[in-house]
């Protein structure tokens, strides 16, 4: 069985762990430079405030205290994500982080009942140890696990854990009411083409003839149909990248602990990721760098660090991403470890076209589109890596606008959560320190 553990409204949930007064209130988290809403609590969604709403439109609501808007606190989210991954590694045989708030766990050799029990246990453990609410989807394949997770989120009767064995009535009923476009890897263009052939639900796709799918569409779609039947045939790396994040990672040919080697690999991944980003015409708001040692070598020191670096403004500039990668690596690199794998993840993507409309924070993209397009063209024609970027200079100090950022409770000694010994003690403390300039 494969499990997908997905945190509910991850950014907002991280904030609530340290600010209990936000519990049950409409909360939104804003993009870098406080541009627009990128994460919403259930209560904010209920107010019909869509993703991407510019922050200035919500200023009135915020000032009247009807909603809470916070600047993104990537240090906090990155640390909570690392804790989540570590907790899962301690509890499951194998774990593969898929994005900042989604992680696959692999439960080979477990019975169905054991999987369901472990799902509930993980959910309680994460809630108690980290304070984060999560949902768990369990199924024989990645594609079904994703759907199971979705169902666990939608339907409170599952109590956060949904198991689909691929053959039962629940699976059938679910697939029959799931639009084919919501299946992992079926984009909206593809869904339109499928609809012409009468394939509108996930169930239709599952029952379609494999050979025809392969001929008329693609091998990948034929595999997706098999996955819906409960036959695992997709590796995680082959899965369609969600639109919200791009990941490039690879194992080293030879494990290495040398900074320059690790850095070089990460630079390659960063350049490849940036290319993918431009290909789908998105801009990234944050960059995550991660390293893994070999977890099977129990005789070696183990270390699975990750660092999250927010970008000054959404960007698809390879140079900006390379700078962020270097910063991230410097934060987490330690000598003496032999790293097995390194990766770069681009997070919180935004549509480039849509972002152009922002007047207050003109994207840095305008300055270099020709340079990047030329680099991409040459690399496409002459082969990957024909042109790459040399060492970039140390970045200028990045000043993000983050007027409403909460404290970085888990990564800065001087920003720890303040806890009073009696009601009102924390307020008394802040009012005492506030008048100072």
């Amino acid at each position, binding site marked *: 069985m494969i499990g997908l553990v997905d945190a509910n409204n991850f950014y907002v949930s991280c904030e609530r762990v340290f600010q209990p007064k936000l519990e049950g209130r409409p909360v939104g988290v804003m993009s870098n430079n406080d541009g627009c809403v990128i994460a919403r609590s259930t209560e904010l969604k209920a107010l019909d405030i869509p993703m991407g709403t510019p922050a200035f439109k919500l200023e009135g609501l915020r000032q009247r205290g009807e909603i809470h808007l916070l600047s993104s606190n990537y240090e906090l989210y990155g640390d909570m994500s690392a804790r989540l991954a570590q907790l899962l590694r*301690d509890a499951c045989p194998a774990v593969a982080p898929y994005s900042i708030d989604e992680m696959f766990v692999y439960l080979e050799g477990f019975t169905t009942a054991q999987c369901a029990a472990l799902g509930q246990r993980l959910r309680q453990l994460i809630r108690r140890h980290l304070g984060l609410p999560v949902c768990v989807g369990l199924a024989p394949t990645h594609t079904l696990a994703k759907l199971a997770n979705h169902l666990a989120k939608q339907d409170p009767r599952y109590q956060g854990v949904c198991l689909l064995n691929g053959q039962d009535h629940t699976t059938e009923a679910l697939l029959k009411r799931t639009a084919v476009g919501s299946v992992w890897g079926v984009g909206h263009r593809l869904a339109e083409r499928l609809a012409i052939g009468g394939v509108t639900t996930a169930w239709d796709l599952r029952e379609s003839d494999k050979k025809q799918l392969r001929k008329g569409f693609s091998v990948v779609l034929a595999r997706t149909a098999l996955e819906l039947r409960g036959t695992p045939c997709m590796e995680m790396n082959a899965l369609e990248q969600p639109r919200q994040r791009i990941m490039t990672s690879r194992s080293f040919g030879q494990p290495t602990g040398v900074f320059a080697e690790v850095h070089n690999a990460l630079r390659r991944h960063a350049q490849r990721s940036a290319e993918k980003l431009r290909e789908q015409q998105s801009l990234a708001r944050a960059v995550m760098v991660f390293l893994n040692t070999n977890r099977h070598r129990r005789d070696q*020191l183990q270390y699975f660090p990750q*660092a999250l670096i927010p970008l000054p403004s959404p960007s698809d500039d390879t140079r900006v991403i390379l700078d962020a990668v270097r910063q991230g690596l410097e934060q987490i690199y330690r000598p*003496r470890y032999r790293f097995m794998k390194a990766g770069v993840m681009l997070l919180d993507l935004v549509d480039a076209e849509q972002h152009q409309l922002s007047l207050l924070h003109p994207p840095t993209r305008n300055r270099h589109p020709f340079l990047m397009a030329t680099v991409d063209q040459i690399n496409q024609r002459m082969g990957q890596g024909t042109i790459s970027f040399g060492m970039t200079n140390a970045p200028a100090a990045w000043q993000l606008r983050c007027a409403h950022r909460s404290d970085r409770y888990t990564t800065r*000694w001087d920003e720890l*959560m303040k*806890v009073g*010994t*009696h009601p009102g003690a924390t307020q008394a403390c802040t009012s005492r320190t506030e008048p100072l300039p």
Partner: protein
Amino acid sequence: MPGQSAHFISALPLTSQPLPYLTFLGRAGFSGFPSPAQDYEPCTLDLNTRLVKNPTATFYVTATGDSMEGWGIFEGDLLIVDRSIEPRLGHILIAMLEGEALIKRYALYRGSPHLCSSHPNYPPLLLEGSDCQLWGVVRAVVHEYLR
């Protein structure tokens, strides 16, 4: 690599945690006498291993207020809070009450569980029927004399 013990493998460091301090296990020299300490594997004491039993569930917070001084918690002290501990009577807890995080001692008062402080101004709070939620158990207090 010598000097790696199973000890370090189980205590996985997080990015937020300082890394365990590794000691170099060498001989006194290439020739000459072996170090007399050679058979005693040195393992420099590390406060992390003593105070942080479960790094993923351990958070640090700062105490404010004077009503827990009777239990040794002073204004500005650093609390090491372990969310993985099952609370028991006598433990000092971080509890969430009406949207506020408070430090209290979980104890019996007149025969039933209460959240108590050590200050007469704040009477014990009956747990039963309150909407109080546990945030974590305080494992240790760090009171720094020099900063």
